[in-house]
């Protein structure tokens, strides 16, 4: 065996090790992004549940002052029930949930708009606390969604770029959906500000 062969083998081994390290780095970045997206989704989930929990209280308080706004109140209750059902059903994707949450957001928006017409209700300390809680929870849903979508954006960009897309294919790093809360009213009418 000549010295040339040894040099060849040495270079080959070095290149192989470098390649392996590089593959490991890409794989680990995928894992990191996926965990970050999962965490982001968990944050969204916490806030959605918080909103489900707030609504019965809110409905009860509004009922005490504006009991004849039955349609609006019923719409909120049924939208909440539907959202909870969609949320608890297994294999629900971000898309279906976005639709149900969008309807709930709309119904809540209408309820808060109606509440504006009742000065006694607006002055109720319990209602004011609930209003701040709801405003904040809606904001948190929005911000956690923003964070989740940003993370998914980075994940998807990495997943589709060359050469990391090859690793994604081999190790089944699947496509993730953005979480979009469908809101038809948002497109048509200006949103109501609670502040």
């Amino acid at each position, binding site marked *: 065996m000549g010295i040339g062969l040894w040099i060849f083998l040495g270079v080959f081994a070095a290149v192989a090790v470098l390649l392996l390290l590089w593959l490991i780095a890409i794989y680990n970045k995928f894992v990191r992004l996926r965990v*970050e997206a999962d*965490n*982001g989704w968990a*944050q969204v989930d916490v*806030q959605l549940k918080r909103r489900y929990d707030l609504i019965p209280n809110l409905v009860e308080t509004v009922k005490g002052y504006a009991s004849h706004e039955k349609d609006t109140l019923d719409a909120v209750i049924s939208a909440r029930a539907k959202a909870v059902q969609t949320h608890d059903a297994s294999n629900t994707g971000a898309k279906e949930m976005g639709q149900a949450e969008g309807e709930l957001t709309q119904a809540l928006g209408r309820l808060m708009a109606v509440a504006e017409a009742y000065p006694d209700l607006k002055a109720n300390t319990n209602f004011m*606390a609930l209003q*701040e*809680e709801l*405003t*904040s929870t809606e*904001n*948190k849903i929005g*911000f*956690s969604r*923003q*964070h989740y979508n940003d*993370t998914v954006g980075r994940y998807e960009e990495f997943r589709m770029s060359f050469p990391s897309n090859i690793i994604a294919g081999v190790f089944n790093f699947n496509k993730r959906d953005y979480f979009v809360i469908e809101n038809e009213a948002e497109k048509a009418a200006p949103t109501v500000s609670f*502040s």
Partner: protein
Amino acid sequence: MHAAAPGGSRTPNLDERVRERIKAYPGTITFHDLIRKNKRDSALLIVLMIALGVAIGAIIGGVVLPVGMGTIDAASAATSDYAKLADRDPMSDEFADSTDDIVDRAKPTRVLGADVSVLGDAAVYLPSLLLGAGVALVIGAGGAIWSYFQGANAILRMVHAQEITPELDQELFNVVDEMRIAAGLPMPKVYLIPESALNAFATGRNPENGVVAITTGLRAKLNRDELQGVIAHEMAHIRHFDIRFSLLMATMVGLIVMACDFFLRITLYGGAGRRGRDSKGGSGAQIILVVVAILLSIIAPILARFIQMAYSRQREYLADAGAVELTRNPEGLASALRKLSHDEEPLVDLANRGTAHMFIMNPLRKMRKSHQSVKSMFSSHPPVEERIARLMALAR
């Protein structure tokens, strides 16, 4: 679109100037562009600081030995062999090659195995100088480590900040919670500073130990959107590890100042010996080199401070852009900055130069009064109009 500024109408001047400055930015600019630019600029400044440190080290290292050689013949330990040495060009290779045997015969002083005899009479002072530098290094490193772990608590105590619970201020807690969710960080501690001045700051060595503090004055004066902007700015500081980076910068400045001080002392101690030899005619190039090195070691600490402050200003811009990344609402922070800029009494007595960079507005009266709207090389914060202009450029 020029957004109407609630509360900003008291000084139409400010808005005029802001409008002028907005034109400097392209209409398509986004916070992503600003964040990229600021990160690039601050990386550049860190590189500059390291380069300055390396340059100072190289020049001082290159000068100290020849300077020492120049001083030896007048020193008490000088022998006839050393006198011969002094007449040669200390910069030439031949000099370096032929010195060994002469130095050996001249009974060189050895400190830790290094031949320091060439330092001549400077060698007499060297142990004390080294000791001084060592003590300074230990104190400096100790201080850096202490401020890394205890700095947050110290500053909170210094400004009499009190940690608050959600029951005391639900809205403030909600806003902080919203912003930390947007940043994907753990919930920081929330402190109130009982001061009428308008200011806020963030601290903590990492996001897990994050703290946001706001004065009661500022808390009372802002609406929800503005409060969100201010908290987002502080959250961006935590997210960008600004406490860690500014500590790194301060440590580098300290090292450069120390090295320059060490060099100046060693040349001053050696100065008498050199003058004695000058009558015999020293190398002109060597003297020029020494003079340049002395000048540099006087300028370098100032330059280092300048880079540090430029860096601090970059981090403020970065935190502003990062705040918009979190809130997606540049007008909230811009409006809050307008209110802050009208404040004449920012947290004066409780802040000092070392902590100024952590506040949203420069808390030092002297710095603020004269530099608030002026671009100053030594201000830790950029002019407020420029900050508002950058934010409003995003809101067009």
